[in-house]
């Protein structure tokens, strides 16, 4: 195989998800009436903001060669914390701060802190106690969701303070500010992963942890930071979720983990670690969102989405394995 064919093939493999996204959008635009509109595309981006933010954190940890199953529950707990404090009906305490805008940074900080703490807990156990990240974060996935049920008593909080909800209502260039927050997160973390030593080190740790340790990279420190980041970002996703639903319910965000997981894998992140980029993950998120929108427009019962997402996860993992075989052929 000559170098140019190889380069082309590798380029396609590296950016497969973007090609898939374009393909899906074109097909839907042709086949589904009313799909091809700016409003629909804006809606696709808007609907993917919570999932997108959550996927960033998950992707960071998977790229570093580990796993974080707790992101969904962490987002729910952060959303519930914000909901209970700043909602005025249901179980909301309706705390008011003067001036009103002060509630924005305070609620955001609370959401991020909740996430960061659980992330630090996960990271500590993975690094110090050397337990499998899969098991630890599975446990967190369960107990954090349990905590949401405990503090809410199974009830919900409604009517989030208008100053906070403003982010979900105010639009800029056709998109609500929450969507811009998600896009900004992708830009910032993509740059961190591609351009800073920290990002480079995470990728290398995912590739060969022993080698990075021998090279003097502080592997444990980097891994703990990755878990804390994943938790914090999940906290941000929870904050966005609370804004989006104007409150929080006990089962808020159930199933998001598997969508995030699908987006990350479809986005080209290898579950073996060390491979994948965040722009790809964003394309994966948009792809899922585009499919959801199509299902809605076609008037299929919403329950179909779950079937399709399940199949997509399966397809993504198969695709991951398939890509690895091709890569080995190339090598």
């Amino acid at each position, binding site marked *: 195989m000559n170098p140019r064919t190889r380069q082309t093939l590798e380029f396609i493999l590296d950016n497969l998800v973007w090609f898939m996204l374009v393909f899906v959008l074109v097909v839907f635009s042709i086949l589904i009436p009313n799909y091809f509109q700016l409003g629909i595309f804006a809606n696709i981006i808007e609907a993917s903001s919570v999932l997108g933010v959550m996927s960033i954190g998950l992707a960071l940890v998977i790229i570093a060669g580990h796993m974080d199953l707790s992101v969904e529950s962490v987002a729910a707990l952060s959303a519930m914390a914000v909901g209970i404090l700043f909602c005025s009906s249901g179980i909301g305490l309706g705390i008011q701060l003067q001036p009103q805008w002060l509630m924005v940074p305070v609620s955001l900080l609370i959401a991020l802190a909740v996430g960061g703490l659980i992330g630090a807990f996960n990271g500590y156990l993975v690094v110090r106690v050397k337990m499998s990240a899969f098991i630890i974060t599975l446990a967190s996935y369960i107990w954090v969701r349990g905590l949401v049920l405990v503090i809410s008593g199974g009830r919900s909080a409604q009517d989030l303070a208008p100053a906070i909800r403003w982010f979900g209502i105010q639009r800029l260039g056709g998109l609500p500010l929450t969507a811009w927050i998600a896009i900004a997160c992708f830009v910032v973390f993509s740059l961190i992963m591609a351009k800073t030593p920290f990002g*480079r080190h995470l990728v290398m740790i995912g*590739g*060969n942890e022993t080698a990075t*340790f021998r090279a*003097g990279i502080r592997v444990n420190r980097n891994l703990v930071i990755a878990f804390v980041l994943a938790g914090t970002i999940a906290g941000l996703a929870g904050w966005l979720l609370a804004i989006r639903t104007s409150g929080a319910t006990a089962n808020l965000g159930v199933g998001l983990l598997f969508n995030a997981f699908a987006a990350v894998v479809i986005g080209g992140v290898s579950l073996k670690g060390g491979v994948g980029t965040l722009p790809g993950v964003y394309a994966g998120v948009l792809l899922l969102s585009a499919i959801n929108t199509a299902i809605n427009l076609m008037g299929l019962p919403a329950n179909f989405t779950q079937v399709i997402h399940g199949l997509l996860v399966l397809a993504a993992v198969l695709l991951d394995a398939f890509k690895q075989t091709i890569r080995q052929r190339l090598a």
Partner: protein
Amino acid sequence: MSEPLLVLDNVAKNYGAIEALKGISFSIDKGEVVALLGDNGAGKSTLVKIIAGGLEPTSGRMLFEGKEFLAKSPAEAKAAGIETVYQDLSLCTNVDVVANFFMGREITRKVLGIPVLDERAMEQVVQKALASAGTRIPSLRTNVEHLSGGQRQAIELNRFVHFGGKLVLLDEPFAALGVEQTRRGLDMIRQVASQGIGVVIITHIMQQAFQVADRIVVIRQGVVAGDVARNKTSPDAVINMITGETLAGAGPAS
């Protein structure tokens, strides 16, 4: 040279009841090449890992440049000036040549106070380092998984030559190299030593040891079985030390 670069004083390592190293003592001077020989399982790699900070000794002490020294991590050893090339390659195959060359000590420039990788500067350094060593790698931006075993080892060897430090530990560095590359590798070692850097090289190939080393240290069953200057011994004598036919350190043979 007044004081030795590194002194090992009765360094021992136990794994439970198993004594991998029973008490190793020898020293390395600046600019000296020491070949560490011994049969499989004699404890050579264990010893290298202890010096390089990958393992902690059970007992004994080390002096580095006359000061008490014990690296708790490879990062500490590296900071002290000890470079290591391991037997199983320590490369991340999922990133490119440049990223591997600078693993853990990337060149950065500050953008708004945030360290950002300076890819161009790093690529230039790698280009120069590889060119001066005569290593040909088609593109420095290909991931290492696409390179041959020899090219991979060349990256590691060039890495230690470039970063230098004070002491270099090489654990069977030529296992994947061809004849010509091995010769160049041996040249590299002499060149590094001539800059005043101490070199410890583990090898199984007697010929290599005699080509490059100033002194030969033989380890057998966790103790030093022989420590001789190269020009005062012969391959046969060394083989006897490795297999234990001459009972060095066990009293005179009757």
